């Protein structure tokens, strides 16, 4: 019976070992767009408003060689699970483009924007905890 219990435990550990690690967000990063990248339409940028999570920094949309990027500058936030960066039509992420997982809770960071969204509609940059549907911060991209 002990052998069987040991085998059961071994199998469980094997299955659990298959789970992916979330990785650390706490290491500060310092990404930059190229020097020849330009801010879209002059000054398309906004400062983050926090929703109880100490979100601060600036969001800007840059263009380079026809490719768009959302750049978070001097950014900081509290840590949280499953944090994503969105371009959103609303302050709450009802209709949005997911730019991927937040790379770090502090520093300068660059996110590729797929296609050419209408910034007249997608006028907010959001940091959102997707798994628990909790908004951390939003920045209106003002032209």
């Amino acid at each position, binding site marked *: 019976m002990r052998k069987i219990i040991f085998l059961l435990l071994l*199998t469980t550990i094997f*299955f659990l070992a*298959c789970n992916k690690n979330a990785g650390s967000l706490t290491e500060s990063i310092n990404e930059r767009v190229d020097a020849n990248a330009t801010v879209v339409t002059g000054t398309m940028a906004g400062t983050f408003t926090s929703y109880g999570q100490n979100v601060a920094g600036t969001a800007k949309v840059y263009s380079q060689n026809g490719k768009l990027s959302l750049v978070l500058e001097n950014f900081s936030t509290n840590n949280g699970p499953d944090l994503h960066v969105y371009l959103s039509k609303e302050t709450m992420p009802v*209709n*949005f483009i997911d730019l991927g997982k937040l790379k770090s809770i502090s520093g300068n960071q660059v996110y590729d924007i797929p296609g050419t969204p209408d910034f007249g509609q997608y006028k907010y940059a959001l940091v959102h905890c997707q*798994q628990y549907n909790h908004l951390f911060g939003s920045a209106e991209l003002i032209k």
Partner: protein
Amino acid sequence: MIKKILLGFFLTASAVNGFSQSSLPKVSQFFDLTGTLGESEGAIAGAYVHNWHLGKKKKWEIGYGVRLTSYFGVKKDYITAPARLSRSSTIPFVVVFSGQETKNWDTLNVQRPFANSFNASVNFGYNFSHKWSAGFNIDVIGFTFGRATSGVLTSNGTTRTETVTKPAAFNLLLTGDNDLGSLNSEFFLKYNLNNRWALKAVYQFLFSEYTTTTIKQTAPDGTQVDRFRNKVNAFGLGITYQLQ
């Protein structure tokens, strides 16, 4: 995949088919507890089973049971559920082998699915010896209750947050994508430790269904779709306590 597993079961079972045979019981009743794990998901199932032994040597088993399956996961993709959209045919049984209409599929990423389905099931089995048996069971009808959670619906090139997705309440086996709700099925290979206890290795195929509340997929035929399904393939282990 299923064919390979079945072949594996029967090859393994045939290898141990040299055990001496004495008469098997006419009826067997047992409790079953099974755990399965996949990537970022898992399920625990408890069942009561009543089987009749058939045939001259009582090697074949058929019967009924009731099963409570708790399925849980993190950020799992559920795709468009109605068979008229997901498959090229909705004819019962044919639907299982019909083509997948992926162009009609949209994805609902359910953030924290947790659904408990209570279903009546049917069971089939074959005893290779007093020690070894193999079989298949599948849920037929029942109901589901569970946790409402948020979801992210990617549909027609847009991504939207659905704040309240919840498990589909009614379960019914109609074969393949015609099925409604959450239904569990298992292929298993069982080894009897003694007259009371047995261990089993399980391949599980489980349908889990969630519905959206406010945000729906607009299908190519113009209909609004709120049913999304996750098909779970997982391996696991189980333990059986024989009552009779």
